[in-house]
């Protein structure tokens, strides 16, 4: 046990709760003014009629015009999230359990290149790479995998998914590989000694211990992808497209903040389940730390 003196942690510069609040107040004010307040405003504008008063008209319009796009958005983001999870598990799993050191080193060097590349650049990269005349098709034709005539542009929902996975998978892999590295190596070796294959060890021993990290990474990716505007604008701006494109269109073409905010609230609802999970997990972690 530690003595009472050691428990009193480090001597802070300023003492007392007032001082702590004073230090944190400016940051809180910025987040409150430029994040929380506009978010709350979204909830008001979406229900406000043109001449004041409450209305559901904006939501009716949003459903009328954009229900396909909302479903399309959910499908794209869900599919991307699942693919990101699979890629991240495969790469992080090999980094942790792989038996060939040189392959592990190569993989570690390779997978993280897109990590900090912004979405807008990823969109531009895929716009040229996946086009009918893009490098992907040239390579597929060159290697004889497809006929020149069957080359097609992937610049539709598939292009958006590819751009999302390309950009977000390294992020989740980084988090996951970090968590996997801290799994007790004795557990892994014990299982290996008992004759478990690498795949078994990954699924039965390692994954259950890093489930929290995986879910947090996937939730963050899910939420991030929901509000990406540049990728769908650049790859697939025509209907059906993602709801973010519709929001931008409502505003830039009609100045229609009502419907735009209704659409925003609907995509917030899509994100809500994931967000609640993440926030509870993260607050619990941070408070426990």
């Amino acid at each position, binding site marked *: 046990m530690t003595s009472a003196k050691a428990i009193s942690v480090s001597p802070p510069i300023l003492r007392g*709760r007032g001082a702590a609040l004073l230090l944190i107040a400016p940051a809180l004010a910025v987040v409150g003014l*430029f994040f*929380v307040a506009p978010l709350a405003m979204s909830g008001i504008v979406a229900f406000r009629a043109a001449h004041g008063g409450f209305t559901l008209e904006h939501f009716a319009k949003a459903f009328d015009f954009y229900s396909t796009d909302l479903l399309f958005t959910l499908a794209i983001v869900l599919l991307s999230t699942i693919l990101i999870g699979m890629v991240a598990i495969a790469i992080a799993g090999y980094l942790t359990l792989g038996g060939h050191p040189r392959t592990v080193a190569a993989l570690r060097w390779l997978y993280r290149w897109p990590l900090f590349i912004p979405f807008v650049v990823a969109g531009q*990269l895929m716009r*040229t790479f996946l086009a009918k005349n893009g490098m992907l098709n040239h390579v597929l034709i060159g290697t004889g995998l497809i006929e020149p005539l069957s080359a097609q542009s992937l610049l539709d929902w598939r292009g958006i998914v590819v751009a999302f996975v390309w950009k977000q998978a390294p992020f989740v892999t980084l988090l996951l590989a970090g968590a996997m590295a801290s799994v007790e190596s004795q557990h892994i070796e014990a299982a290996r000694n008992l004759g478990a294959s690498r795949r078994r060890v990954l699924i039965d021993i390692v994954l259950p211990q890093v489930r929290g990290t995986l879910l947090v990474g996937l939730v963050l990716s899910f939420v991030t992808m929901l509000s990406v505007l540049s990728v769908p*604008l650049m790859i697939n701006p025509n209907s059906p497209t993602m709801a973010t494109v519709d929001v931008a269109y409502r505003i830039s073409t009609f100045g229609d903040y009502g419907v735009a905010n209704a659409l925003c609230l609907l995509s917030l609802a899509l994100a809500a389940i994931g967000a609640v999970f993440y926030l509870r997990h993260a607050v619990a972690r941070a408070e426990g730390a």
Partner: protein
Amino acid sequence: MRTFALPSPIQTLFRTLILALLAFAIFGPLLNLLLWAFAERWYFPNKLPIEYGLTYWYRVFQPRGNALASLGTSVWIAVLTVVFSLAVAVPAGYALARLKLPWRGAILLAFLLPQAVPNLPVYVNIAQVFYQIGLNGTILGVVLVHASHGLVLAVWIASAAFASVDASLEEASRNLGASPWTCFRTVTLPLAIPGLIASAIFVFLESLDEFTGTYFVGVPDVTTLPLLMFNATMGGNYQISSITALLLLIPSIGFMLVVERFLKADVLAMVGR
């Protein structure tokens, strides 16, 4: 123990094939961009550019060209965002890591929110308010939007950096008679500096790369590099947009390559959980 059987040729082939496929998936799009950046003429059905050259580079880098102006705007906004974010994030990070806070849970929640909530509604409504008070299309408006997001990252990294400073070192300096401020200045701060530099770089990159917020708040007068790139792409000018994209890629990839030097594993482990 692992058996030391010779790797079968099939296994080796399989492994190499998978690595090659992954390398193509990652570098293919980047290589394609590089080709576009140096292509003078390239049209269907040619697999490679018909003519390479630097014409478009001259056009991008001409003294009064849009690209240089946008680069300047982007860097200026990013620098202001870093200064502003760190000025408020460093004290907040210190308080979170070291001091007793009332309503700790609620405060943590506020700093997690911008990560866990889609940002589009925020940008849309900020743009509407800024438009009414004349902040739309100003550098200050864009900096405020970037900072409200970058700040959150900065608070978390700064808090992790302060938390990873060994408290017994501070105690020792205090016991030897250092004042609280001297202790912070000569012990805590220097030890936390690598993490703080990392948070500054993070915020800088975030701001440099930010698109959606600038798209709504920056119009019509503030054109950052990502917006310039976007406009060039939508205008079908692939050379200009590829060169601009390349400019944006350099800091991103550079940071990816050195990130571990600044963010030690113990700090990295505390970020983004």
